[in-house]
Every structure is written in structure tokens, then in C-alpha cells.
């Protein structure tokens, strides 16, 4: 039976990303509720970590291979995916809601005249309808949406679907793809000095104006290092030039939902809360007991970051030894 659901996996440097495994989980949910089959597709130049797909429940993967396709090319990728999907007579395409998925999903939706919902956090299946939940106003409200078109494209928020191992034999079909359309093409990636990105991190240590100066962010960085966490920032310190834009958390920065978010010297303005309040555990360290950040925090310390951060870092380091 042809698969009605196609999961698009994402690779960076020919390694499939963890968020793609979460997308497989979403596909498993769709498949079980709709009684559909699903399969996956990846485009690159020889995937090196195919073993991470073992026992994910995925049974068919098509790998499109070409040396020009290791780096992303929207024009080429779009064409390959649309052709593959048409061949399957598929109905649903799933992406992770990453910079890759966000870029590609609407292009594919436009080609297929499919309804497209981004950043989905939940799906409900009743009366033969798929009702999709997505946070709006950066999480200040939730919209429940229905797609009316027969073809549907969704991007799945990362860190929402839990990875559950499922025994399964994986078949891999390799297609050597010739002469891709490279009209729009990534020519290189400038990596930010090997730091973990807030958008992908399971733990985030964020700093705000309470740190007083860019140099003092060393305290935040050391704690992040101890936890193996990413460094985040409030807009106030990004606008002041203390931290890069890529670290900004909030309504006009990145929306994050890590397992642990530690806010250091951040007041908790509504725009900041919008971007992080769905984190699983929130810790606030702020010397103002009335700071709004405490309204979303699970654990709070109403004290001085300069006193608390070094002690906390030391204790975490000790525990990890």
C-alpha cells in the first residue's frame, strides 16, 4: 500500500537531526489514528548516521543523493519532494518546524495547493477531521485549525513529541538525483562558534540586564557549560549589543520550550514570557521579588545573580564529576 504520509527528514553535514525523529513520532500518531502508512525522505550527499533511524518505527526511507544537494537548495529540494509525493499519491507532508522546515513547507504547500499549518503542537482526530493546535501571539493563545484541502502540510514544533522506540525493519532506497534545479542555493554555512543554539537546546541559561555588563555574561556561560546548555538572552541585552540576535528569546526572538530554562537577571516582560513560558521547568534568579518572571517560575531565588550563579555553577560541576 502506498504511504499517504511523507515525513521530510533534515540533515546537516549529512547527519539526520534529532528533530526529524520527533517528526517521525508525529507521523506515527497520524498513521495510527488515520490508519495510513507513512514513509520518509531525505535529501543529501550520503547520510552518515542512518543507524539513528533504526527502531524508530520507520520502515521506508528514500534517500536522494547528489553532491550538489548536501547544502540546502530550496528550488531543488522542492522539486524532488513534490515529484516524490505525487508519485506516492500522498496526502500529508510533515516537517520539523526548524529554519529548514519553515522555509520548505510553504513552498511545497503552494506547489500542491495544500493547506499549510506551521509550528503545530498537538493534533486531535475526531469525526474524520484533523484538528491542529498551534500557539499564536507567541503562546499567549492557542489556535485550533482545520485544513479544508485534501492535501496538507504541517510543521511540528520541536521538543514537543517524545521519541518512543518502536521495533521495525528499515528499508532504504537510494536515488541518485541528476541535474537538480539550483536557482536558489546555499553556498556555505557560517557556523556560530560551535555553540549550542537556543532553538535546539534542552536546557537554556538566559541572562538579562541584571548582569550589568557584557563581560559578566561569563557567569551565564559558565553555568551553561556546566549544564551542557545553550545561552539565551533578553532583548534588552541583545539591543545593547551585549549578545548576538541569535540568542534572543521572546515574542520577536526565538520561542523555546526546553526541559529547563533558567532566567538570570531578567524581569520577565510579557514579550519575554511569550517566548519561554511553555518550558517544562523554569527557574528565576532575580533580586526583585516582584519581578513578573516569578509568576511563571517553578523555582525562584530572590537574590543577587553575582552571588548565586558562581555557587550554582560549582555545585552542578561537582554533581557532574
Amino acid at each position, binding site marked *: 500500500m502506498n504511504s499517504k504520509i511523507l515525513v521530510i527528514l533534515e540533515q546537516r553535514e549529512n547527519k539526520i537531526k534529532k528533530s526529524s525523529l520527533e517528526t517521525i513520532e508525529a507521523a506515527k500518531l497520524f498513521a495510527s489514528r488515520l490508519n495510513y502508512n507513512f514513509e520518509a525522505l531525505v535529501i543529501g550527499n550520503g547520510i552518515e548516521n542512518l543507524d539513528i533511524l533504526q527502531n524508530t518505527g520507520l520502515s521506508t526511507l528514500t534517500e536522494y543523493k547528489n553532491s550538489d544537494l548536501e*547544502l*540546502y537548495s530550496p528550488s531543488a529540494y522542492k522539486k524532488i519532494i513534490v515529484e516524490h509525493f505525487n508519485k506516492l499519491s500522498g496526502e500529508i507532508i510533515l516537517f520539523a518546524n*526548524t*529554519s*529548514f522546515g*519553515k*522555509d520548505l*513547507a*510553504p*513552498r511545497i504547500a*503552494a*506547489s500542491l495547493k495544500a*493547506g*499549510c*499549518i*506551521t509550528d503545530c503542537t498537538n493534533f486531535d482526530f475526531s469525526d474524520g477531521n484533523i484538528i491542529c*493546535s498551534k500557539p*499564536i*501571539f*507567541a*503562546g*499567549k*493563545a*492557542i*489556535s*485550533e*485549525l*482545520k485544513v*479544508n484541502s485534501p492535501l496538507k502540510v504541517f510543521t511540528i514544533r520541536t521538543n514537543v513529541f517524545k521519541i518512543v522506540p518502536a521495533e521495525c525493519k528499515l528499508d532504504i532506497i537510494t536515488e541518485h538525483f541528476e541535474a537538480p534545479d539550483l536557482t*536558489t*542555493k546555499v*553556498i556555505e*554555512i*557560517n*557556523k*556560530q562558534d560551535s555553540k549550542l*543554539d537556543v532553538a*535546539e537546546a534542552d536546557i537554556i541559561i538566559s541572562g538579562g540586564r541584571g548582569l550589568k555588563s557584557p563581560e559578566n555574561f561569563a557567569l551565564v556561560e559558565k553555568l551553561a557549560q556546566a549544564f551542557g546548555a545553550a545561552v539565551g538572552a533578553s532583548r534588552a541585552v541583545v539591543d545593547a549589543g551585549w549578545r548576538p*540576535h*541569535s540568542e*534572543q528569546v521572546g515574542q*520577536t*526572538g526565538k520561542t523555546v520550550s526546553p*526541559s529547563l530554562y533558567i532566567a538570570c537577571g531578567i524581569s520577565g516582560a510579557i514579550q519575554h514570557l*511569550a517566548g519561554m*513560558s511553555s518550558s*517544562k521547568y523554569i*527557574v528565576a534568579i532575580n533580586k526583585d*521579588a516582584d519581578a513578573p518572571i*516569578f509568576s*511563571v517560575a*517553578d*523555582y*525562584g531565588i*530572590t*537574590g543577587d545573580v553575582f*552571588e*548565586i550563579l558562581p555557587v*550554582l555553577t560549582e555545585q552542578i560541576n561537582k554533581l*557532574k564529576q
Partner: protein
Amino acid sequence: MKIAVCINYVPDTASKIKLTDDNRIDENGLSYVINPFDEFAIEEALKTKEKFGGEIFAISAGNDAKKEGIKKALAMGVDNGILLKYDGYMDPFNIADNLAAQIKTLGSNIVFFGRQSVDYDNGITGLLTAELLNYNCISIVTKLDIQGNEVTAEREIEGGKEVVKSTLPIVITTQKGLNEPRYATLKGIMASKKKVIEEINITSVSNLVENVSYKLPKVKNPGRILGSDASAVNELVKLLRDEAKII
């Protein structure tokens, strides 16, 4: 050269969102601003005009209220405003369809969008419009260079930036970091008062996506304050280990 910039007018980011009794977004008491990401789009359009000359058209689709957003763009230095007018709900595809038709009529081959509206957080209208126009598109752009027909841009990705090459005609969706949006000057505001906003009625085709209802997120119970100095750290570490099971 005609440069187009598509802008949305959205509730201020400081807004508290409430629902009405029938579970719609309560618009009472909300104040509106140009979508923050669209300010980068307007600024980049102005810079592009400064470099290549031409005329800038700000286009917004929606009800009369969107005119206020267009007026602000005109005050920043945009030359012309177009309101694609409709009432009720249009999904992003529908909006993109109408924006694409208008851009085609204008014949602009450089088009700017914000990366995302901060109300419904779709982040798709620019990309959809580009596809419907059969234009190239680079999204979430933090650096842009146009030389003749060639476009080089940097787009933000997790853990870095992608350098992307493409060609005109192109849609660019703008991200913070691309530029510093200018403020409207008094002179700009005065000059904008003389500019007319063209109004074009548009009609909706069937929506591919429709909203069924809205909810508010679960409110969290207030957490525990563990103390006011470093002596609280022991307790915190214990909770992170035993209760949150994070370490």
C-alpha cells in the same frame, strides 16, 4: 524600478490576549502597531531604493484599520500605499494570492516581507506569495546584497547562518539583524499626509485553512521561592535532581 513591501498591522507585542465568550480573540482594548518584522522589510526597501532608485509600494491586505500601518510606512519614506480591502477572514494562502496578483500588476521584481506576523505566527505568507508569483525567495534574511541580477543573502538557521545565492525576481523575508529601522521624521510625517492610499476591493476564494476555535494556555501555579541568597542553591539543585529529574 518598483519595489514592493508587504506589511501587516498587528496587536502590540505588550498586549494581553483575552477571549470573548464565544472563544474568539477579544479585540477590544488592543492597540496596533506595524508588525515588528515588517519594519525591517520597510527599512530594507528604503535602502534598496537609495541604492538603485525607483519607487516603493507598501501593500497591506485587510480591513480599514490596516491603513494606519500603511500610513506609518509612508511616514518612514515609502512612496505609495495600497490597501487590498476585505472584511472577515482570509487564510494566508488567500492573502498571498491577492498580494501576488497586486505585485504582478505593479511588476516589481524585488519584494520584501517580514519573516512572520507576531499575531498568528504563521511565517508563511512571503514564501507562498513568492511561489505563486514564480519568484525566487530567501527567507529569514539577516544580510542582503543585490548586484545586478544576482542576490546574495544570509539567512538565520539553528547554530549559524546560511549564505544563499539566487537571482531576481525575488522575495526576501526579513529578520532582526538585517538593519535598524529608521524612525519617521516630522518631515516624513508631513509629506506622508499628502500621499493617497489606493484602495482595491478583493474577494476571497475558499480558504484552505480555517480556525475552529481559540483557547488560552494553561496557567501555571505560582512556583516556590527557595530563598534570597546562595544558601538556596542547595535546595534548588536538589529539586532539579529529584523533582524535575533534569540533572
